[in-house]
């Protein structure tokens, strides 16, 4: 299994509270991604990174920010959590850019915003 650790695994928070999710990899892969998974929607890309300090938006980036100060860590921040951000969040990594690349996924973070 690819060395991807997401923390926390579960979190319950209140509306308006800031939340940061962490993805840590030991594979030294350049590309990292944050997805959210919701029933009836499959996986949707929030943000991705193609190197240290290099990030870009995905299809559902509103309300989220990311940072990557080290190759191994990719942080997802909800500045002011809303109930619509209740979801399961997955981090993924890949060796190279391009839609043909295999993605390796973490085990997910279940976030509940009350």
């Amino acid at each position, binding site marked *: 299994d690819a060395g991807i650790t997401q923390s926390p695994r579960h979190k319950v928070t209140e509306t308006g509270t800031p939340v940061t999710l962490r993805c840590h990899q030991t594979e030294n892969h350049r590309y990292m991604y944050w997805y959210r998974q919701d029933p009836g929607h499959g996986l949707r890309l929030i943000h991705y990174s193609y190197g240290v300090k290099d990030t870009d938006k995905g299809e559902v980036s509103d309300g989220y920010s990311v940072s990557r100060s080290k190759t191994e860590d990719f942080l997802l921040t909800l500045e002011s959590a809303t109930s619509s951000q209740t979801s399961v969040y997955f981090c993924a990594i890949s060796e190279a850019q391009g839609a043909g690349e295999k*993605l390796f996924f973490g085990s997910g973070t279940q976030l509940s915003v009350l």
Partner: protein
Amino acid sequence: AQSVTQPDIHITVSEGASLELRCNYSYGATPYLFWYVQSPGQGLQLLLKYFSGDTLVQGIKGFEAEFKRSQSSFNLRKPSVHWSDAAEYFCAVGGGRDDKIIFGKGTRLHILP
């Protein structure tokens, strides 16, 4: 724009029976096509991938998929399912170098003993 449709939200089959999960895609050029599997409480794992060559692709865990350009389909098959195959299956499509992978909404597979 690229898109993926998985028409079946749930599929139930008996253990030992054959399986086919449907996937239709929309993409302007030759796409990369994927099937991923997600076991409960886990992340996704790649089953197989297609870009070019033989249109019948073999994957892990005894799965295969067939690319049919004329039907814009990439259906996943397994001749005999096991109880451990109960999971959610995602079809995905991607294109050129700068394209992202787009996932379908998933098909949840239930296995009857």
